[in-house]
């Protein structure tokens, strides 16, 4: 990977002052995003994946937030940037699609108008009617039928899937270089999810859009991502290419995520392999590896924080935080013939 990344995140730390103390939501995240690439950030609720995305967009700035580290977009530092700089970039160069298409639109304004408004704000010289024409084009591009008529609809007249398409259309309005999609399909039916994923893939291929896809579902990741970051309690616990994460996962948490997926293409097990317990409170993290209390393979080294390290020179970007040796991992990650965290209870 020698190409210049469009987005470079280094040692990003985001903490929030709360009544219970400093809550470290993101703790030292580093990654590079190349043009035309889909990077998936995977984790459970509270893993810091959404806060990472929102911080890139400058949406976590507030009096009680402490943001450290560096986010560079085409070499320009965003963490220290002025609000005016961020406003110039947001929507225009970096756009975001949110999880809930029901609450992300203004309910009392026509959808086409909302899309046009964003264009007018960034392109003051846009001729009258041009923004509307562009909104219709965008609707067609994302597969909304009868685009000409539907730009004048209100959000409530759209179904969930159509609203998510409209939101993607809005994000694409100014032809951004980076699209951040935060759980874009979680609120949708599986059939609609498949269509939206296909759409994101096409956009990525045809326009060379660099995409960050945030999700808790590795099934979605398998369909579209090039590279994957797995996050747990604010830290990246494993990162690698799609192939490395699915076929040679090195962190027990990744095994757990892979194992708990329901698979239609396999005979169904008596019990679904699960990750027991719940993610820890960020105000009261266990000492050392944060996954330790849920990990069946815990041993005496785990109370020390493992570094994010690789094993092979030829796959230097496949890194993970775990003290187990590669041989131990190979022996332990196979459960009932597939990757999983622990043998299903009898």
């Amino acid at each position, binding site marked *: 990977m020698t190409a210049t990344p469009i987005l470079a995140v280094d040692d990003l730390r985001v903490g929030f002052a709360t009544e219970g103390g400093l809550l470290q939501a993101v703790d030292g995240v580093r990654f590079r995003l190349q043009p035309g690439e889909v990077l998936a950030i995977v984790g459970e*609720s509270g893993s810091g994946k959404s806060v990472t995305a929102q911080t890139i967009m400058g949406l976590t700035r507030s009096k009680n937030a402490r943001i450290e580290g560096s986010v560079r977009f085409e070499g320009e530092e965003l963490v220290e940037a002025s609000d005016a700089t961020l406003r110039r970039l947001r929507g225009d160069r970096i756009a975001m699609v949110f999880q809930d298409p029901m609450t992300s639109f203004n309910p009392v304004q026509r959808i086409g108008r909302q899309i046009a408004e964003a264009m007018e704000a960034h392109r003051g010289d846009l001729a009258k009617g041009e923004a509307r024409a562009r909104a219709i084009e965008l609707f067609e591009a994302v597969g909304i039928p009868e685009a000409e008529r539907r730009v004048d609809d209100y959000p409530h007249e759209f179904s969930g899937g159509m609203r998510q398409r409209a939101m993607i259309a809005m994000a694409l309005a100014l032809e951004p270089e980076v699209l951040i999609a935060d759980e874009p399909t979680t609120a949708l*039916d*599986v*059939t609609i999810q498949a269509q939206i994923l296909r759409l994101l893939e096409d956009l990525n291929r045809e326009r060379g859009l660099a995409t960050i896809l945030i999700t808790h579902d*590795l099934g979605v990741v398998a369909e579209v991502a090039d590279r994957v970051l797995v996050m747990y309690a604010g830290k990246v616990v494993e990162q690698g290419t799609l192939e490395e994460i699915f076929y040679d996962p090195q962190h027990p948490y990744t095994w757990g995520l892979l194992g708990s*997926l329901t698979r*239609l293409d396999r005979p*169904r097990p008596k019990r*679904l392999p*699960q990750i027991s317990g719940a993610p820890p409170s960020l105000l009261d993290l266990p000492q050392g590896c944060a996954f330790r209390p849920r990990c069946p393979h815990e041993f005496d080294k785990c109370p020390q924080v493992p570094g994010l390290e690789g094993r092979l020179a030829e796959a230097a970007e496949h890194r993970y935080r775990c003290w187990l040796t590669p041989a131990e991992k190979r022996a332990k990650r196979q459960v009932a013939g597939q990757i999983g965290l622990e043998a299903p209870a009898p």
Partner: protein
Amino acid sequence: MSEPLLQVTDLVKHFPIKRGILIDREVDQVRAVDGISFSIEPGQTLGLVGESGSGKSTACRAVLQLIKPSSGSVRFEGQEIAGCSRRQMRPLRREMQMIFQDPYASLNPRKRVGQIVGDPLKRQRVASGGELRKRVQELLERVGLASEHYNRFPHEFSGGQRQRIGIARALALRPKLVIADEPVSALDVSIQAQIINLLDDLQDEFGLTYLFVAHDIGVVRHIADRIAVMNKGEIVEEGEADQVCENPRHDYTKKLLSAVPVPDPREARERAAKS
């Protein structure tokens, strides 16, 4: 074959579409549930699958008489309950309970967990005082929470834990039939497995019968003995769970199956290349 616990025959629920200023005229009907029939044997699980708008939630509500069916029959242990009054339904409510989709919206935020789970016991005059508290704490432990959670409020819990509270409440009266309407679709995938396994264990322990509703056929296959596929108010296919997933006959079932993501990049690529 034993007698089914629940037998639904030609169940219909149409909602009128009305127009007019002074006099409402019925101009059309939404055929939310349009003549569905199915039955569930005691101790079995029927999975009901379909997209949003297919009528599956309306079907659940009509079965439980939470909304009045337009026509058709619902027999519970052989007894007709379609058209029963609220008063007639009350003793039967103990026997049939519901688990809802959204654990953030279905728990009263101003009540403590103990009150939420204990309320059905109090209303049906099953237990009170110290006995009530003891039973609620046992239930909390049974669903994987701690008895100390008794005095907490719902906002102190994660999504998965809230769904456990909802399950404890549904089980408080030891029902025979539990209708679960999308009980895991609002949860993280890793937590979904926990809840599905919990429902499975509880079924074995209490001899429960489930009607399990979801839009994701992959999830339904894991818990269901039989699967009914619903589209536009009708059941288009019904059969053994593995049979329906491996040899689907109806085009709509095939469409649902092909939409489930394949969590295997190589196979996903092959499949994408084919289509």
